[in-house]
């Protein structure tokens, strides 16, 4: 991915983190426009399955009842992975993020941020960093007897640490 785009992504994640820490929510215009642009970017790179799956999952979110949402999401995701096996991991990440939001385990802002990252950078390593930082954040929150954590901090910190790792990897 172009380094300028990566810097823009980090700056955007940082702005989202500031919004989240202050208001416990991120305004729609701050997340929706980048989500749309990330989808366009993925399409322009020829990765047509992830953005189409993202659009489908957003649409499926309005289905009733809940069982219908799960069934449609499962079928669409399976077909997406089968028709474009190279994107199977990205498909799994997108579905997992959507599922976490669907069961109420993840906020909508966090889900959109993770989807943007998955669309721009369809590699699992960055999500490994984010999950590790999130786990550490969870442990610290439990030690401080807090029940909730702003996960966007983990998303930004994970992406930042991944950037540092990538730079060191290129230097060495």
């Amino acid at each position, binding site marked *: 991915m172009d380094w300028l785009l990566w810097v823009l992504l980090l700056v955007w994640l940082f702005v*989202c983190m500031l919004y989240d820490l202050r208001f416990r929510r991120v305004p729609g215009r701050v997340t929706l426009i980048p989500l749309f642009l990330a989808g366009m970017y993925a399409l322009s790179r020829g990765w047509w399955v992830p953005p189409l799956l993202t659009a489908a999952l957003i649409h499926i979110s309005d289905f009733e009842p809940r069982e219908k949402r799960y069934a449609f999401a499962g079928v669409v995701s399976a077909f997406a992975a089968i028709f474009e096996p190279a994107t199977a991991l990205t498909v799994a990440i997108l579905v997992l993020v959507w599922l976490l939001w669907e069961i109420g385990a993840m906020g909508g802002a966090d889900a959109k941020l993770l989807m943007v990252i998955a669309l721009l950078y369809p590699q699992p390593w960055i999500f490994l960093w984010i999950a590790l930082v999130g786990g550490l954040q969870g442990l610290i929150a439990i030690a401080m007897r807090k029940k909730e954590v702003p996960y966007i901090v983990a998303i930004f910190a994970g992406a930042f640490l991944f950037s540092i790792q990538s730079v060191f990897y290129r230097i060495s």
Partner: protein
Amino acid sequence: MRFLRDHKGIESTEVALIIAVVVLVSYGAYRLLGSNIAAVVQDIAGRI
């Protein structure tokens, strides 16, 4: 749309920990079985 209208940015601490564990286990499984999983998916895609 429900997903697009949700702007919350908060999770429970347990969820953050569960995500970390699930991702680590998935990563371990991927390292062990990744090539086999890819072969199965390719096979299904080929049959379709």
